[in-house]
C-alpha cells in the first residue's frame, strides 16, 4: 500500500539535512523505546510501556508536520516517537516514563508512556483510548471559529476506532467541516485481539468512506517517505479545505502490546519473525546507504551520538525530584470566581419576582454579552423560536449568532467531549453545554465527564476545562425513567467538578453567573419542576452572584436542622411552616445550593444550635449525597447531636412513570413532616 498523494519526499531528492535529522530522531526514539523496560526491571518506574517499534515511520511523520505554534496534537499511549518528533526532548520522555515531578505532561500524575507537553500544544490525553478524538474535534471547532491557522491532529490505534465516541468525533468533524487529522496506526491488534474481531473491513478507515467532507488517505506507516507524504498531504488538505482527513497507516507491532502482555501466547514464530523484517528504521537506513545519501560512517556516528544523548537524559531523569505526597490536593479543581458584589450570595432585593427559567435565560444572555468567548451548545439548543428542550436558551442564537449558539447531534458524549476540546484553545473561553435533554440522559457522556474531572489534576494545573454543564434534573413531572431521575449523587463521587443545585430563581441566577465566570467544570443542576413554579420565583438583583460552597438559610429555627437542596427545599420549608404553626417545633432549613463544595460550616453551626438534623433530597437515600452529609456530621459534629441523623429521599428503585408510582418513589412534604416529627420527639 502506498498513499495516493503527491510525492514531495523521496529518498533521492529530500535534503540530506532532513534525512539525517529523521534518522537521528528515529534512532533516539527507538533507543528510548528499547530502554523503557529496563526501568521496570530495575523497579525505577515506567510500569506501563506500549512500545512504538514498528510504528516509527508514521509517528516520525506526525511529529514532523506538527507545528507547535498553531497545531494541536493529541497523541496516544504508543506515541513515543510522535512526541519526540513533535518536540519533546529525550529527558522529557524519561521524566514521564519514570513519573518524576518535573514530567512536563503533569508531574508524574498520569500513567507512564502518556507523553505530553501542553505548553507546546502536545496535549495530555487519557488512557481511555481514542476518547481524545472528541477533544481534537472540539479544538478544531475553535480553530475554525477564530479563523486561525493550524489543524488538530489525533492519533490512535486502529482497534480503538471501535469505540462509539470515535464515530461521534469523525461524524461531527465531517458535519461541521473541521480541520482535524485522525491518524489510525494499524498494527493489526488491540492488545491480543486481531482486527478481524473488531470490524468487518480489514482497514477500519473504510468504515468511514461514506461520510461527506472527509478525505481518507491510506499509507504505509512503516515507510518514512510514504508516511511523510501522506501526513503532508493530509495537513495541506485539512488546512486548505477546512475539512477532516483520516490517515490510515499500516504498521506492525514488533513487540508485545505492553509490558503486561506476552505476544508469544498468540503470535506464531513466523509472524514474530516477519514483523522484525518490516522494521521501518532498518529499511530507512538501507535506503540512505543504497542511494548514497549517507555513509555507514555517518550513520554510525549518529548512533553513537544517540547513545550518549540517552545516557545524559537517563542521568537527568534519575536525578530529577519525585512528586511530593503533600501535593496531592493541589490542582484538584481550578479556582472559582469570587463574587465581589454579593460575597455571601444573599440580598435584600424587593420587586417583581422572576421565574427560575427567566433567571437562567437572563443570566445566560448577560454573561454572553459580557464575555465574547462564551459558547453554548446542546440538543434542541436552537431552531427558530426553540431554545433548549425547556426553552431556557430561548433567543440566544438570535442575539449571539450561530457560531456561539448552536445545536449538537444527539450524542451526549460528543457534546461533553467537544466542550473539553474547545475549552483548550483559549483560557478566556467559557462553554456552557446542555449536557443532555434531561439529566438522566447524561449517562452516555459519563466517560467524557470523568475525563474532564481529571484534566486539571492530571496536567498539574496546566489545563482547566472551563465548562458549565447544565442539566434539567429531577422529577415531579411524571417523566419516569430518563426524565425524572436525579444523578447528582453519582456525579458527586468524582473529584474535579463542582456541583450546584439551586431551588430558587435568585440562586439559580447567581450560581450560573459564578459558574460561567469560574475556571474549571461546574455541573449546574436545574430543578425542572420549578422552572415556571411561582414558589421558586424571586426578585433578583442586577448581576447577582452566589459563591460556591455557601449554603443559604431559607428558614431560621432552633429545634431541628433540615439540610436540603433542589426541589425538596420548598417541601422542607412547607413542612417546617406547618409544624411551627402547630407548635411542634421551630425548624431551620438550610438550602445547600452547592453540594460540591459542601458548606460544612453552616451545617455544623446550625446543628450546634438545634442538636438534631434531617437530611432531605430527591435523589435516592441509599448511596445518595445525603450519606456524605450524614457521615460528615457524624465525623465533625457528633458531640452536638441529641438524636440520630435521619434521611429522607427517594426509594432505592427507579422512578416510575405512572404518577402513582412516581409519588410512591419520590419524597414529598408529608414524608418530610413525618421524619421531622420523629426527630423533634427525641
Amino acid at each position, binding site marked *: *500500500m*502506498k498513499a495516493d498523494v503527491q510525492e514531495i519526499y*523521496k*529518498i*533521492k531528492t529530500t535534503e540530506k539535512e532532513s534525512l539525517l535529522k529523521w534518522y537521528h530522531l528515529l534512532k533516539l526514539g527507538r533507543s528510548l523505546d528499547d530502554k523503557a523496560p529496563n526501568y521496570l526491571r530495575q523497579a525505577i518506574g515506567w510500569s506501563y510501556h506500549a512500545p512504538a517499534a514498528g510504528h516509527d515511520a508514521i509517528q516520525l511523520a506526525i511529529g514532523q508536520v506538527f507545528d507547535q505554534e498553531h497545531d494541536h496534537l493529541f497523541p496516544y499511549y504508543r506515541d513515543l516517537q510522535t512526541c519526540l518528533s513533535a518536540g519533546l526532548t529525550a529527558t522529557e520522555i524519561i521524566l514521564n516514563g519514570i513519573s518524576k515531578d518535573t514530567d512536563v505532561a503533569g508531574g508524574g500524575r498520569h500513567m507512564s508512556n502518556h507523553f505530553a507537553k501542553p505548553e507546546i500544544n502536545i496535549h495530555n490525553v487519557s488512557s481511555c483510548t481514542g476518547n481524545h478524538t472528541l477533544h481534537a474535534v472540539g479544538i478544531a471547532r475553535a480553530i475554525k471559529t477564530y479563523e486561525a491557522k493550524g489543524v488538530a491532529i489525533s492519533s490512535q490505534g486502529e482497534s480503538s476506532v471501535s469505540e462509539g465516541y470515535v464515530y461521534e468525533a469523525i461524524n461531527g468533524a465531517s458535519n461541521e467541516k473541521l480541520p482535524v487529522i485522525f491518524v489510525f496506526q*494499524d498494527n493489526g491488534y488491540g492488545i491480543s485481539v486481531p482486527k478481524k474481531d473488531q470490524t468487518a*473491513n*480489514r*482497514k477500519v478507515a*473504510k468504515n468511514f468512506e461514506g461520510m461527506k467532507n472527509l478525505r481518507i488517505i491510506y499509507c*504505509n506507516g512503516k*515507510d518514512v517517505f510514504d508516511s511523510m507524504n501522506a501526513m503532508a498531504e493530509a495537513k495541506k488538505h485539512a488546512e486548505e479545505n477546512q475539512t477532516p482527513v483520516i490517515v490510515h497507516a*499500516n504498521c*506492525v507491532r514488533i513487540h508485545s502490546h505492553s509490558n503486561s502482555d506476552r505476544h508469544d501466547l498468540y503470535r506464531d514464530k513466523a509472524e514474530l519473525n516477519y514483523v522484525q*523484517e*518490516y522494521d521501518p528504521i532498518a*529499511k530507512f537506513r*538501507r*535506503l540512505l546507504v*543504497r*542511494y548514497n545519501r549517507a555513509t555507514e560512517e555517518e550513520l554510525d556516528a549518529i548512533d553513537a551520538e544517540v547513545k550518549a544523548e540517552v545516557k545524559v537524559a537517563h542521568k537527568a531523569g534519575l536525578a530529577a525530584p519525585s512528586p511530593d505526597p503533600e501535593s496531592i490536593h493541589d490542582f484538584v479543581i481550578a479556582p472559582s470566581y469570587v463574587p465581589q458584589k454579593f460575597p455571601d450570595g444573599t440580598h435584600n432585593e424587593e420587586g417583581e419576582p422572576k421565574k427560575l427559567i427567566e433567571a437562567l435565560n437572563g443570566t445566560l444572555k448577560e454573561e454572553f454579552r459580557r464575555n465574547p468567548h462564551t459558547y453554548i451548545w446542546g440538543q434542541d439548543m436552537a431552531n427558530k423560536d426553540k431554545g433548549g428542550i425547556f426553552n431556557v436558551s430561548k433567543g440566544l442564537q438570535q442575539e449571539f449568532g450561530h457560531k456561539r449558539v448552536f445545536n449538537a447531534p444527539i450524542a451526549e458524549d460528543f457534546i461533553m467531549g467537544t466542550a473539553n476540546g474547545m475549552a483548550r484553545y483559549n483560557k478566556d473561553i467559557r462553554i456552557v453545554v446542555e449536557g443532555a435533554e434531561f439529566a438522566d440522559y447524561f449517562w452516555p457522556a459519563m466517560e467524557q465527564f470523568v475525563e474532564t474531572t481529571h484534566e486539571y489534576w492530571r496536567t498539574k494545573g496546566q489545563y482547566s476545562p472551563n465548562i458549565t454543564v447544565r442539566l434539567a434534573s429531577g422529577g415531579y413531572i411524571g417523566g419516569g425513567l430518563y426524565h425524572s431521575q436525579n444523578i447528582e449523587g453519582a456525579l458527586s463521587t468524582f473529584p474535579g467538578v463542582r456541583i450546584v443545585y439551586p431551588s430558587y430563581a435568585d440562586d439559580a441566577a447567581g450560581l450560573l453567573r459564578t459558574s460561567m465566570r469560574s475556571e474549571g467544570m461546574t455541573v449546574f443542576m436545574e430543578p425542572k419542576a420549578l422552572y415556571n413554579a411561582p414558589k421558586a420565583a424571586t426578585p433578583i438583583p442586577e448581576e447577582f452572584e452566589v459563591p460556591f460552597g455557601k449554603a443559604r438559610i431559607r428558614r431560621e429555627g432552633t429545634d431541628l436542622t433540615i439540610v436540603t437542596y433542589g426541589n425538596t427545599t420548598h417541601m422542607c420549608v412547607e413542612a417546617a411552616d406547618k409544624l411551627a404553626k402547630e407548635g411542634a417545633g421551630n425548624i431551620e432549613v438550610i438550602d445547600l445550593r452547592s453540594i460540591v463544595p459542601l458548606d460544612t460550616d453552616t451545617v455544623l453551626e446550625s446543628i450546634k444550635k438545634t442538636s438534631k438534623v434531617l437530611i432531605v433530597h430527591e435523589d435516592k437515600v441509599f448511596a445518595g449525597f445525603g450519606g456524605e452529609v450524614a457521615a460528615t456530621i457524624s465525623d465533625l459534629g457528633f458531640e452536638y447531636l441529641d438524636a440520630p441523623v435521619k434521611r429522607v429521599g427517594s426509594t432505592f428503585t427507579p422512578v416510575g412513570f405512572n404518577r402513582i408510582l412516581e409519588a410512591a418513589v419520590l419524597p414529598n412534604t408529608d414524608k418530610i413532616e413525618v421524619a421531622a416529627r420523629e426527630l423533634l420527639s427525641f
Partner: protein
Amino acid sequence: MKKIGLFYSFHSVKTKQQAQKIIAALGAENIEEVNVEEADEATFKKYSNYILAVPTWFDGELPNYWDEFLPAVEDGSLKGKTFALYGGGDQKGYAENFVDGLGIMADFIEARAGKVIGFTSTEGYEFEGSKAARGDQFVGLALDIENQAALTGERIEAWTEQLKKEFK
C-alpha cells in the same frame, strides 16, 4: 526470444519455488536470474524482457526489496521494454487487497512507458478488491498458495505458454 531477466528475492521461499517452475517451463537458457535485493540500475537496464516476481505483502504493499529498489529506476524511461509480472497473494486473508503488488508494479512500469504483458483472467478467484484487476483480467499471474496451492502448477504452465507467444 531475447534473454529474460527474472527478478526475484533470492531469500524468498514460495516466490523462489515459483521462479524455478517458470524457469523450467521457459527453459533455463532463456532466463537470467537476478536477486532484486542486490540489483542496481545498471543490472536492470541490461534487459529488454523481464519477469518480475512481486508478491504482495501485508495489506497491499510491495515487499521492502522492491520498495527499496524502485527509486533506482524511477527517473528513467522503460520505453521499449516488456514486463511480465507474477506474485503471490491471499484472496481470503487479504480479500480487499488481493495481489495489489502486481497492480502497483504495473502502474509503475506503464507510467514510464514500459509494456506489461501476461495478463490473466480473474476467473476462479474470489476477492473484494485488487489494484491488479483491470476489468476481468489481472495485470499478471496471481498465485495463491494459502488458498489455491493445487492450482499453482497449472497456472504457471498456462502462463508461461502465454508468455512464449507474447515475449518477442
